[in-house]
C-alpha cells in the first residue's frame, strides 16, 4: 500500500508546499523544527485542513480539495502516535488500548490485544491508569493503542522526543519490529539523524515547508546538504550482517564483504543490522594504514567532495560496504590532494559506533 501526499497550505508567513510518496515501511519526514513536518502529519490525520491538497492512502482518497473530498479524522482509519502520548487519563491502560477497536469497522483486520500487549511488554500495566505510568510506559501504551485501532496507516510525530536516551533505546526496537511486521506504511516525524538511520526505509527531507530530497534512506542521508544540523550531524548508513561475537567484547560484522569490528551488538550471528557511521568518526588515508589502532578500514573511491560553510568538508566515499561519509578539514583535503575518483581508505574506530546508532535492519 502506498501513501501519496500533495499539499499546499499557508499559515501566516509560513507556506507548506510538499509532495511525496510513502511506500510500505517507515517513511521519515526529516527536518529541523518549523520545517512543516508536524503540519504534514496533521493534514494526513485530518487535524489540519490544508488550503489545497490531495492525500491518497492505497485506494482510499482521504482528501481531495479539488474534488471536494475532506474525510473527517474519525473516518480516516489511521493510528496516530503523538509526541506526548495523549492517553485518556480517566481510562485504564486496557481501556486505552481498546479505545480504537470500539470504533473500527466490524470486519477490519485487527491486531490481537494479547499479541500487542506481548510485543510492547504491557502485561503488568493493564489495570493501571496513565497517571501512574512512566514516560516510556505511556509511550508504549500509545503505540499499542494506535496499533489496535486497525489502522491502514500509522503516523508518529516525534514519538521519542519527550523521552531520555535510555527510554528511547527501550522503544526504538518496538518501532523496528513494527516496520518489519506491519504491512501498513508508517509516516514518522523526526529530527534525530540516528533515529532516521535506524528506522527509515524512505526519507523525505524538508526545509521551510518544502521537500528538498526524498528517496531510499541510505541515499538521502549520505547527502549532508539535507541534514537539519548540516555537516556536523552527517553520517552514512550501512547494512551489515553479524558474523560472530568474540571474547574480547567485540562483534564481527560483514558489510558487503568487508569485515567490521564493533563493540558487542545485541543481535545473533546471521542477523542483519543497519549501522550509522557519523562522518566525524571517519578519517581518510591514501594508503592502507599500518600500525594504526583503529580496526575498521574500508577501501573505496571518492565520489564527491563537498565543502561546508566552515573549515570542514564532507567527503563521500563509495566502498564495497556502501557509501560512507568522512568529515575532514578543507586544509587536509588540500594537503592530501583529495580529488573525485581517487582511491582512499576510510578508517573507523570500533568504539566510535554508538549503540543507539545500531538497529535491526
Amino acid at each position, binding site marked *: 500500500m502506498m501513501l501519496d501526499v500533495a499539499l499546499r497550505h499557508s499559515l501566516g508567513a509560513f507556506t507548506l508546499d510538499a509532495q511525496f510518496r510513502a511506500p510500505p515501511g517507515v517513511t521519515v519526514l526529516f527536518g529541523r523544527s518549523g520545517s512543516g513536518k508536524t503540519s504534514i502529519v496533521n493534514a494526513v490525520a485530518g*487535524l489540519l485542513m490544508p488550503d489545497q491538497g490531495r492525500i491518497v492512502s492505497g485506494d482510499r482518497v482521504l482528501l481531495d480539495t479539488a474534488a471536494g473530498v475532506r474525510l473527517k479524522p*474519525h473516518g480516516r482509519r489511521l493510528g*496516530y502516535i503523538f509526541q506526548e502520548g495523549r492517553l*485518556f*487519563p480517566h481510562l485504564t491502560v486496557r481501556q486505552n488500548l481498546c*479505545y480504537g477497536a470500539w470504533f473500527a469497522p466490524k470486519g477490519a483486520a485487527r491486531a490481537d490485544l494479547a499479541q500487542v500487549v506481548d510485543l510492547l511488554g504491557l502485561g503488568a500495566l493493564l489495570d493501571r491508569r496513565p497517571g501512574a505510568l512512566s514516560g516510556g510506559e505511556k509511550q508504549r501504551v500509545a503505540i499499542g493503542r494506535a496499533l489496535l485501532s486497525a489502522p491502514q496507516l500509522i503516523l508518529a510525530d516525534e514519538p521519542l522526543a519527550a523521552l531520555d536516551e535510555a527510554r528511547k533505546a527501550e522503544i526504538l526496537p518496538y518501532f523496528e519490529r513494527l516496520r518489519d511486521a506491519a504491512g501498513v506504511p508508517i509516516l514518522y516525524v523526526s529530527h534525530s539523524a540516528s533515529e532516521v538511520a535506524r528506522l527509515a526505509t524512505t526519507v523525505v527531507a524538508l526545509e521551510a515547508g518544502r521537500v528538498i530530497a526524498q528517496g531510499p534512506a541510505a541515499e538521502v542521508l549520505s547527502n549532508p546538504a539535507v541534514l537539519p544540523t548540516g555537516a556536523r550531524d552527517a553520517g552514512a548508513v550501512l547494512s551489515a550482517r553479524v558474523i560472530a561475537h568474540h571474547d574480547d567484547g567485540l562483534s564481527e560484522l560483514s558489510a558487503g564483504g568487508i569485515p567490521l569490528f564493533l563493540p558487542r551488538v545485541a543481535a545473533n550471528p546471521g542477523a542483519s543490522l543497519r549501522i550509522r557511521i557519523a562522518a566525524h568518526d571517519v578519517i581518510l588515508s591514501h594508503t592502507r594504514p599500518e600500525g594504526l589502532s583503529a580496526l575498521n578500514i574500508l577501501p573505496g573511491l571518492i565520489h564527491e567532495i563537498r565543502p561546508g560553510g566552515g573549515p570542514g568538508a564532507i567527503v563521500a566515499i563509495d566502498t564495497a560496504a556502501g557509501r560512507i561519509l568522512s568529515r575532514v578539514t578543507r586544509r587536509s583535503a588540500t594537503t592530501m590532494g583529495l580529488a573525485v575518483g581517487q582511491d582512499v581508505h576510510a578508517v573507523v574506530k570500533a568504539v566510535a559506533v554508538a549503540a543507539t546508532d545500531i538497529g535491526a535492519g
Partner: protein
Amino acid sequence: MTDWLSPAEWDAVRLSLRVAFWATLINLPVGIALAYALARGRFPGRGLLNVAVHLPLIMPPVVTGYLLLLGFGARGPIGAFFESTFGLSFAFRWTGAALAAGVMALPFMVRAVRLSIEAVDPRLEQAAATLGASRLWVFLTVTFPLIIPGILAGTVLTFAKGMGEFGATITFVSNIPGQTQTIPLAIDLLLETPGGEGRAARLAALSIALAASALALSEWLSRRVAARVGGQ
C-alpha cells in the same frame, strides 16, 4: 415534628425540593449544551449567547421575573405556545417557580461546566477522533467523563439556587401557598406575620441544612471522581 413546622410550611419545604429538583434536571442538558457551545464552538453570535446566558446573574431578579411574565405568562407568546402544544402552563403554578429557578441558576451551571470543559486538553479529543470516534462519541467517552466534577459543582449550585430563588419567582408566579410558595417565600411571609419569627427561623435553619448537605455530597462525589482520573 408536626409542631416544629406547620403543614403549610412542610408544603413549602416539599415544594422547594420539587422546584429545585426540576430546575436542576432541566438545567443539566441545557447547561451542558450551552457550556460546550460556548467553550468549543466557533459560530456567529457566540458573544451574544454568552451575554444572554449571563443576564439573569447581572439583572435585578425582579426584572428577570418580569421578562418571564411577559414571555411565559398566560398571555405571553411562549407561555401560550406551551399551553396549546403541551398543555403545560407556567402562570401562578409550581412549574413557573421551577422555570424561574432554572433560568436564574443557568449562569451558575454554564459557568461551572464551561470552566471544566476549557480545562480538558483538546489534544485528547483530537486523539480520540484519530482513533475513529465521531464528535458525539468523543464528547461521550472523553470530554464528559473528564468534566464530571464541573457538572457536579454546577448541579449543586443550581439546586441551591432553586431552593433559594426569591425575586424572580415572586414576580413571575406570586406567593401562593401550596403552589408557588417555596421556603424563601414562606420565610418572607412569616416575617410579616405577627408571631411568625420563630417558625421563620426554623425554616431558615432547615434551608441552611439542606444547602450544606448538598454541598457536602457534591464535594465527596467530585473527590471520588478526581481520584479516579488522577489515579492509580
